């Protein structure tokens, strides 16, 4: 028998449906261009990368590759398959870790202290703010040329050698060496020019974000701290730093990712550094190699590796992506908003009973 429906109910249903449809239409209209670009140029290549890392992909001839049962991943994680690749990968891994452990705190504390100084609004602070940000807009090539000129050897008339008589073969000699779980790690002098180049121009963005954050810290908190008898140091720790916590978290996130993916500086300056004999012809077999250098050496710079070892490059970048993901996950977890407990109010109740 014919389905009967209450008119009012039907009208409500219909308008609800049209409303939903319209809303989805609008969302599609707004979101689609971005989403398409995001999928086509990020998600898709990512899956294609994963697909490549599972096959012995020939750069020249796509489509001919066959599944090689995780050969590349075995090579990265199992020393016995190809010791040279294993050593060079994990060596560049340790280089990246040590360097970012040194650089990340500096790249946060230096801009933070400069931001605090500029926030004191000394005379001509606008000029200082401009000058401090300027090194970080210098493109990689220009900065590379400057620092190569600075650190060239005496015979090549490097500026440091010529003017200050520092006659160290920066890109050849070793600075010192130490062993880490039994494996001898040599720290080359070449790391010093890279360190100075990162120190010089790496943290401009952080400086801008932090100085913007500082200006949002409410003034009356400083006055309250004054009244409560705070020393300047304690004021910074209890008012300034918590005040700019969201900006600090953002800067920490981007800086960690930035230095884990260090490539430009050591490519331009020392192109992987003095080569280590044992892994010289392996991808990134140098003393200033980093993970990204290992990947780029396969994917872009070295033609023979590029044509036949592309899968290894894709696998290495996936391992790196996983590692970077884990690190930023930990960082997010550590800096999340802490939930409040009830410990103190319990103690209070007991104290109250006793009284």
């Amino acid at each position: 028998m014919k389905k009967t429906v209450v008119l009012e109910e039907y009208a409500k249903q219909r308008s609800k449906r049209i409303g939903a449809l319209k809303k989805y239409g609008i969302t599609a209209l707004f979101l689609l261009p971005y989403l398409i670009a995001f999928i086509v140029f990020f998600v898709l290549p990512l899956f294609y990368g994963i697909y490549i890392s599972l096959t012995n992909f020939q750069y020249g001839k796509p489509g001919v590759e066959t599944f090689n049962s995780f050969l590349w991943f075995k090579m990265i994680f199992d020393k016995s398959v190809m010791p040279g690749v294993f050593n060079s990968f994990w060596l560049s891994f340790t280089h990246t870790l040590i360097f970012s452990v040194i650089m990340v705190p500096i790249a946060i504390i230096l801009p933070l202290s400069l931001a605090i100084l500029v926030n004191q609004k000394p005379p001509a602070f606008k000029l200082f703010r401009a000058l401090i940000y300027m090194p970080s807009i210098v493109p990689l090539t220009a900065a590379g040329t400057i620092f190569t000129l600075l650190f060239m050897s005496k015979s090549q008339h490097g500026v440091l050698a010529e003017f200050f008589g520092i006659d160290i073969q920066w890109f050849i000699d070793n600075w010192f060496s130490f062993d880490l779980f039994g494996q001898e790690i040599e720290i080359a002098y070449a790391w010093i020019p890279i360190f100075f180049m990162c120190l010089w121009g790496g943290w401009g963005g952080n400086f801008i974000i932090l100085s913007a954050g500082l200006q949002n810290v409410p003034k009356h908190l400083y006055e309250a701290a004054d009244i409560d008898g705070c020393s300047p140091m304690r004021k910074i720790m209890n008012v300034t730093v918590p005040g700019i916590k969201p900006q600090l978290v953002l800067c920490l996130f981007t800086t960690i990712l930035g230095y884990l993916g260090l490539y430009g500086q050591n490519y331009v300056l020392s192109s992987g550094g003095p080569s280590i004999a044992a892994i010289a012809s392996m991808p990134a077999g140098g003393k200033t190699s980093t993970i990204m250098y290992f990947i780029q050496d396969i994917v872009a710079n070295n033609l023979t590796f590029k044509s036949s070892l592309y899968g290894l490059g894709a696998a290495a970048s996936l391992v790196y992506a996983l590692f970077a993901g884990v690190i930023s996950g930990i960082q997010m977890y550590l800096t999340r908003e802490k939930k409040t407990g009830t410990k103190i109010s319990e103690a209070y109740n007991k104290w109250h009973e006793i009284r």
Partner: protein
Amino acid sequence: MKLLKKGFIKVTSLLMIVSLMLGLIGCGNDNNDDNKNNGGTDSIVDDLPRDENGEFVADYLEGVQLNVWSVIGNPDQKILLELIKEFNKEYAGMIEIKVTSVGHYDYYNSLDSTYANDYGNFPDVCIMHNEKNIEYALKGYFYSLDDLITTVGVGIDFDNAYDNIEKTTIHEGKHYGIPVDAHGYLTQIRQDIIKKNGLGFENNTRFIPNDYDEYQTLLEGLRALADTGELWVRNINLDEDHSWYQLKNGNSKLDAAAVVTTDNFYPAFFHSQESDNLTALYVNGGSLLDANGDVSFHKNAGMTQYVTDLVDRYNADLYGDAGNKEAAFPTGQIVMFSEGPWMVANTYDIWWNNNQLSTAGKLGVTEEDASDPVYANPYAVARPYYMAADGAPTETASKWYGNGHVITLTKKITSMQKAAAALIFAEWLTQGQNEDGNYNLIDWCKSGHVPAWKNVYESDAYKEAESKSITLQAMGDPEQIIALESSQYATTLISGLTTAVGNVSAQLLSVDGCTVDKAKQTMNEIAASTQEALNLLKLGIK
């Protein structure tokens, strides 16, 4: 939290489906022609019009366009372009060659990326270095040419090419490229400084060292004189003051235009890495790969001698990377450096053996300087004779390494007409003769190359050209040049050898220097790592 999880799964799965579907389209439509992977020529369509008995009809080629990539950069790029213009004029209407010159800095990079991603722009003919011929042929880029030549009936006959040069283009008996020329790195010498300071051999008449000992004594002599400041030096740059002066300080001349001083004078510039290493290897009978395909350059005694000599005999103060060699050589800061012959022929020769040096009285040139042939043209060029260590096998002792250029036909060619046109061009360049009878190849060789073909070398037109150019005289008989052994992993092997020598010479500069056995140990380690790279590549390609 539950909603989030459920929502999360739904959205991620949606994203996955969309991207996979798009992915299939993405890599699907890569226009990968089928004939990419093997060398076979079956994919060429035989569209050549033949008359009844298999001969070609008269104008069987018209309007064929060839897209040629050439690796040759300045300064000899000009000469090649002129030759091609001439060819186009001669074959106007039949064959037209459009040449794009891609510098050696990224020739092979763009070859790879165009082949992989942008096949439409892949060249038809490549003029490239002969050592990379087989490597790229086996990547599936080039045709094997033997049967093509017979079908097209072009006058290229491989047996009158020098087989020591031709061997790099052969793989399993098939030719993958037509050799054009050969050129090793020549050593430039300031014979006037050697003569003035009395360090020449056979009582100061021969200035080119023939073996290690003579080379060593010459360098040490120059160094000793320079250290004590008695070294006579002069500047042979155009319209500079050419008068001799000693490096002793306190010499008035010295302070004025004090360019060369005791501490920036170096007897020789560092070996030009690649070709000198290979010369040392081949001259002493070594080879990059041994019979069963393993890395063996570190096993050759001569090679190890060459490397250890760097450490104990030619130590760091005999060699300097004296900045820019083109600028240091004329001023007298360095006496010997090695550079490609194409630079010598086209640039330095005319500059430094200029007539200013032979006209007495002007710019400080004395009567005696002007008259003496050695002082008049101070700039001499020679082969690196001294590379042979004392245990070197006799047949290779007097030879030297040289790479060269080669013409290859790429898989882009699918019509026999184009193949024929390409081969005709190759024949024209290597064997062709212009109207007054001498080979076109000779014009090319004038810019500092030695022909790879016997008939061209033996032709008297070449003899006459050789007499005029000191470079060709220095390069001598192509028979002496050993080209690279043909191998699929040429780049990795060469870079292995270069890194080995590079590492040792870098250690020389470093603070704690380098000892003989340390150098040996580095050689072996790098050889082992190159071997491992080889296995890796084999693994990848399987």
